[in-house]
């Protein structure tokens, strides 16, 4: 599988470490009234997607960047690759991830 890194171009997936669902970037507000319930969901619940999924990948054997990779879990087609820092910035600016 080839991941098209935004800065480095096509790189072999063997250089990366997989973390999981990119929803981990959307950490709940610890001050909200239902924080305990939200953190339970954040920590333990994942969708088991058969199809297009957004995932966090770490380029450990490369430039040490975190990426958000949109990938089809059935065909392994990589549809979109973004820098996780850009995605996180958008979230903190109030935009949907």
């Amino acid at each position, binding site marked *: 599988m080839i991941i098209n890194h935004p800065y480095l171009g096509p790189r*072999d997936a*063997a*250089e990366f470490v997989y973390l999981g669902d990119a929803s981990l970037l959307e950490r709940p507000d610890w001050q909200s009234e239902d924080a305990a319930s939200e953190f339970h969901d954040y920590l333990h619940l994942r969708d088991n997607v058969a199809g297009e999924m957004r995932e966090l990948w770490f380029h450990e054997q*490369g*430039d040490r960047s975190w990426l958000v990779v949109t990938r089809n879990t059935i065909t392994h087609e990589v549809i979109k690759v973004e820098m996780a820092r850009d995605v996180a910035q958008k979230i903190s600016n109030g935009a949907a991830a």
Partner: protein
Amino acid sequence: MPNSSFKLEASSPLAGFSQDFGTVLVEELTNKALVSIAEPLGMKTKLQAEVKKHLGASWPEIGTTTNSPKAYHLLGLQTDMIFAFFDHPGGLADAAIKLMLKDNAYCTDQSDAWVIIKVSGEGIYAALERICPVNLSRDAFAVGTVQRTSMEHLGVIILKHAEDSFVLMGATSSAEDLLHAVTVSIKNTN
């Protein structure tokens, strides 16, 4: 022995290994320094200006290198951090850079952590393409390109510093393993 006359000298990870394999020459480069220069949060513009002013080379984009008249080679390896690669006879290599960049950067002497191997010759492409996942063909990987990648299972920085000539940097702790991976591949493709 308080007044000892012993003088300790550091040895290089591969003891100065050098061997000609016919189409490829493999040499360990000694007396080289690697100093990382990292950007403190929010100081990118200031640091880049200081690097240009004191080291004499512009801040390299990721995957590229810049060279200065002061013989500093700057390697763009990741966001917010570069490596300065230069000749150094020994001792702390980051002192001079710290003196120049002051509090505008986080500088760390990484020289002792890396083994540096130069591989050159026309046969090097065939040998490296078996162990390196990055496309090293002349069209895709021009002189001055640098990338961090892996060879076999080992993390390696690969720099193309001249035509048909690469510099490989790997961890000192697995220096022999990297040399083994490279030399076996050269023998297999010779």
